[in-house]
């Protein structure tokens, strides 16, 4: 056995056994899933939690006096507490269930826009944002006559902090920035970004969609005002996501959606809204999703984020080295601080062609602009091939990726 120490501390074989889909055949080949950045696979415990909810727990929450309803309300609120702990939020009511990162950002943009943004104000984002962290702010700017400012990045794919400092002004109403770039893998210095904004009294929203599956996030440590992520990228169900907001901000913002569950009293003349978090959770939520997400977090915690980080770092290092050795291959995104996401292009070849051949070999990667079109323009490329790794991936799979790319190059050139 030549497994490294890390392999032994971190038993990837047994980890893989907890994910049923990983033993599936695709196009006659064992699946090599390198697209966890798009959505992560689900461990059996998550599948069981969702299954168990529908089999044994199903009832509406916060509504009934009957036992099932009360029990599932407890389970749902326990899930909220699990997420609170995962992010180290101060209070459980700072955790709002949404349908995903996209909805979380829309909620903040819309509610903040309604109350705080006026003509001439500015909102700052970065050049590496996902469309989900561009469009909601663009809409607010259009509606209010405000201006969207964009922090430029270096060729390596790092935020230019000096330029960021110059953009901050008394007109700035919000800084919205991704924690980890889904295209470049760059880990942004969000703590510093928050500090600089707070010096001027500006709130910061962090898009954590790509961060929470890979590293410990401490919203109090970061002093983030808002933090968003999606359950499905964290090994949980699709259709559920989280908005963390500081209590004081969530109290300030008006509701985003309204309807059942968000109120204290309704008359046709006047409605008194419920306290947090229900103020932002109109309608029946994705109960199974919330419970499944908590199961996913329990699973991640059982492996340990520190172990995950270490292991993925090794995968990233290995993949970077192997990929760089392929002639004509260029890695897009070479930040010093990087998560296990690698985008690349190969001279003379279209990413779509490479992705098509890899798919035939059972290797799932993503190709295209990854919902970051402005970033593609910055690099003057039509798109990239992106391999994104989770802790269930192995070096053997990276070897298969490399062999697949070599085959694709041979066929396509």
């Amino acid at each position, binding site marked *: 056995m030549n497994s490294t120490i890390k392999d032994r501390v971190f038993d990837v074989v047994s980890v893989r056994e907890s994910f049923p889909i990983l033993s599936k055949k695709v196009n006659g080949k064992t699946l090599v899933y390198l697209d966890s950045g798009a959505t992560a696979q689900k461990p059996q415990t998550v599948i069981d939690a969702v299954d168990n909810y529908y089999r044994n727990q199903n009832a509406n929450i916060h509504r009934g006096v009957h036992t099932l309803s009360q029990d599932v309300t407890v389970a749902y609120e326990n899930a909220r507490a699990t997420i609170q702990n995962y992010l180290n939020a101060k209070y459980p009511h700072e955790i709002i269930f949404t349908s995903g990162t996209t909805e979380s950002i829309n909620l903040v943009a819309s509610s903040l826009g309604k109350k705080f943004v006026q003509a001439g104000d500015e909102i700052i984002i970065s050049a590496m944002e996902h469309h989900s962290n561009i469009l909601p702010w663009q809409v607010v700017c259009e509606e209010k006559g405000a201006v969207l400012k964009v922090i430029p990045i270096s060729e390596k794919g790092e935020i230019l902090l000096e330029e960021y400092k110059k953009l901050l002004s008394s007109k700035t109403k919000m800084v919205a920035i991704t924690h980890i770039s889904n295209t470049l893998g760059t880990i942004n210095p969000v703590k510093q970004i928050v500090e600089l904004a707070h010096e001027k009294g500006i709130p910061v929203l962090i898009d954590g969609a790509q961060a929470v599956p890979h590293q410990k996030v401490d919203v109090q440590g970061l002093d983030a005002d808002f933090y968003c992520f999606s359950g499905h990228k964290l090994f949980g169900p699709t259709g559920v996501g989280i908005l963390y907001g500081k209590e004081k901000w969530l109290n300030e913002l008006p509701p985003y959606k309204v309807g059942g569950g968000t109120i204290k009293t309704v008359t046709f003349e006047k409605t008194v809204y419920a306290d947090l978090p229900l103020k932002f959770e109109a309608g029946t939520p994705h109960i199974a999703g919330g419970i499944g997400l908590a199961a996913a977090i329990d699973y991640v915690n059982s492996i340990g984020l520190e172990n995950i980080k270490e292991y993925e770092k090794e995968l990233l290092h290995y993949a970077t080295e192997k990929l760089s050795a392929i002639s004509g291959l260029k890695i897009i995104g070479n930040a010093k601080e990087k998560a296990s996401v690698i985008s690349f292009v190969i001279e003379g070849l279209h990413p*779509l*062609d490479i992705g*098509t*051949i890899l798919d035939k070999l059972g290797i799932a990667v993503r190709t295209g602009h990854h919902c970051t079109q402005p970033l593609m323009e910055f690099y003057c490329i039509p*798109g990239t091939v992106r391999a994104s790794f989770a802790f269930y991936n192995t070096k053997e799979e990276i070897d298969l990726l490399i062999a697949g790319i070599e085959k694709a190059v041979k066929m*396509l050139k």
Partner: protein
Amino acid sequence: MTIEETEKEITEEFELFGDEWEGKYEHLIDLGRSLPMIDVTYKTDDKLIKGCQSKVWLHSEMKDGKVIFTADSDAIITKGIVALMIRVLSNHTPDEIINAQLGFIDKVGLKEHLSPTRANGLVSMIKQMKMDSLAYKTKNI
């Protein structure tokens, strides 16, 4: 040759490879390489077919009652698919093109490229070819 006859010819050509994807794709890539170059003056944004991850430029013109297609793509597999579509549909009357069933796509094992997530735009390409033909047809009446 009628559209059906060309479809049959292509199906037989691909049958040589059996279930083996590699040969099929190599053939597709070769077809892409041999697609005649489109006149650069037609490689403009207004000729781009929307909804493709790769770029596909499609130009059509009417000659002696038949629609002639020329096209190009920046991705080689897509270009191979484009070449097949042109071989089947180009140089036919608008009615023939509009009514073409195109069952060969399934038979040669390229059906997966018809799925909406494929993003190579085969569906959009077919739609555009039929729309162009419809436009020529209505203009002539």
